[in-house]
């Protein structure tokens, strides 16, 4: 379950759970998992080949539990989890390898899991939309995809993204600007015009 707003209250709630977990409360670990699993998986799928992601998320939660005696009591829980996942994913992968795998992976995702379960139903327009989207995505560099994901799905501020990626804030701002310029090509003009006229009439 993704939180709608990551506000002050949520930060405090996380920290309470975190401290309970450090004191050996397994239920608190479970609750942290419930809050963050989906968010972390989504982020993971955007930056890494999918077969690695579930294992990496599993490792993150297993490791914080096993190492709970050595972890700090006062951290930004959400940021820490993202950083752990990033480390778990990039451990042992070269950037070049990553570039290749990501593209093939996105292509697969775009056709939207043709498993036996979904075979029975398919919708043409959905596929068309997905194809366009995957085309848009494959035009982005891995870093651009990651920044887009952190900004528009995880709602992180540029400062936080910069800290997570160990880059300067200005670099992130440039990356974002470039990514948006590329995505802009896919804003359909006909739809735009329609909207424009429609709203004027109203």
């Amino acid at each position, binding site marked *: *379950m993704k939180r*709608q707003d990551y506000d002050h209250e949520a930060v405090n709630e996380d920290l309470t759970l975190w401290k309970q977990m450090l004191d050996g409360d*397994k*239920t608190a670990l*479970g609750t942290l*998992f*419930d809050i963050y*699993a*989906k968010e972390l*998986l*989504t982020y993971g*799928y*955007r930056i890494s080949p999918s077969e690695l992601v*579930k294992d990496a*998320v*599993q490792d993150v*939660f*297993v490791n914080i*539990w*096993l190492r709970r005696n050595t972890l700090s009591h006062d951290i930004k829980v959400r940021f820490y989890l993202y950083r752990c996942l990033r480390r778990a994913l990039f451990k042992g992968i070269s950037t070049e390898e990553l570039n290749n795998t990501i593209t093939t992976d996105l292509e697969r*995702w775009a056709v*939207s*899991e043709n498993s036996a*379960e*979904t075979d*029975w*139903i398919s*919708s043409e327009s*959905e596929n068309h939309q997905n194809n366009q*989207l995957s085309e*848009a*995505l494959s035009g982005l560099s891995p870093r651009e*995809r990651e920044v*887009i*994901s952190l*900004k*528009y*799905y*995880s*709602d992180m*501020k540029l400062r936080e993204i910069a800290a997570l990626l160990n880059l300067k804030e200005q670099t992130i701002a440039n990356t*974002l*600007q470039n*990514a*948006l*310029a590329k*995505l*802009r090509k*896919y*804003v*359909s003009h006909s*739809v*735009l015009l329609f*909207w*424009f006229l429609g*709203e004027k009439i109203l």
Partner: protein
Amino acid sequence: MNNYLHFSTEDFAQDEYFIGWVASTNIEKEAFWQNWLETYPFKRMEVEAARQLVLIAQRAAESEISDYDIQVLKESVFEKIETIENKGKRIAWKVPLWAAAAVVTALLGLALLYNFTNQRSSPKYSQLVSNASKKYVLNEVENKSKVTMLVNLPDGSSAILRKGSKLSYPNHFGLEAREVFLTGEAFFEIVRSPQRPFYVYTNEVTTKVLGTSFNVRAYQDDKEVLVSVKTGRVSVLKTSGLETGPQEEKNFSEGLMLLPNQQAVFEKGQTNLVKQTKSQPGQSDGRHIDQMRFEYNEKTIAEIFSQLEQAYNISFVYDSTVIGDCPVTASLTGEPFNQKLNLICKAVRAKYEIVNGKVIVTGDGCK
């Protein structure tokens, strides 16, 4: 507040206040932007393009992850932790050989004594539970209401608990067996996992399955215990002692093997289980879940959800004008609740979430 007058499309798309407007239905933000657009109508193009851009970026960042997958992953996290922690214990148990031998002898003595005292009466539910709580952290659910109650188990299986019944189950199941403890009556739909049999322990009878649906009736005050099968194969054995866990196959060869529409009856005070064929085979759609069939041929979402509401006694919240008419063809009899939802939602490209005991389903429709 920024001075938006000189903003380009990309600038808008990066602005937090603007993104907040696109993503939510906040009235204050809505009023601000409507007002702003009336003041600067020539910026409409940029604003609309930026809105689309934000939506594209958000869609690009999304991913299809089902609650079911997350549940499975959660279980694997706790399994892995358990495995590692148990390994740690084994290494820590470095005791001198003579001491170990003494402990083994003592345990053996205890075991003999234990078997002796328990040979006559079967263990009670409360004894089974207190014994099992040495091994697991157990949750106990008691259905005090007048209607049935859905319990989602950690492996994604479901149990539909009848009124006055109690079910205990661990926070997460062990690696070799999934064990639950029941007094009263429940209908089970079990996720298939041949490597990890599922056991239902009651005071008189133990039921073992690999993945199927079946009903167990074992009220404390009833004269008989009844296990009946809806789909798949089920083994039933007299509960012998408190020691639970993966049972030897040869134990079960002394028990009964049940097929669909068969049931085992165990009369208290008797030593044997009796196999019967159910008088009414579950062909017709009964009112209770153990007689319902979930076979859909071009059925609409509205019809399916209304059947599931009745079967699991849980309410659905969804927009019937959007997805109510979507047709689904599927064979879901015997699938656990979560798995049913998962498959139906995949079929119509919808998503579900369980919030405050209600199933919330959202989707774009299937036109």
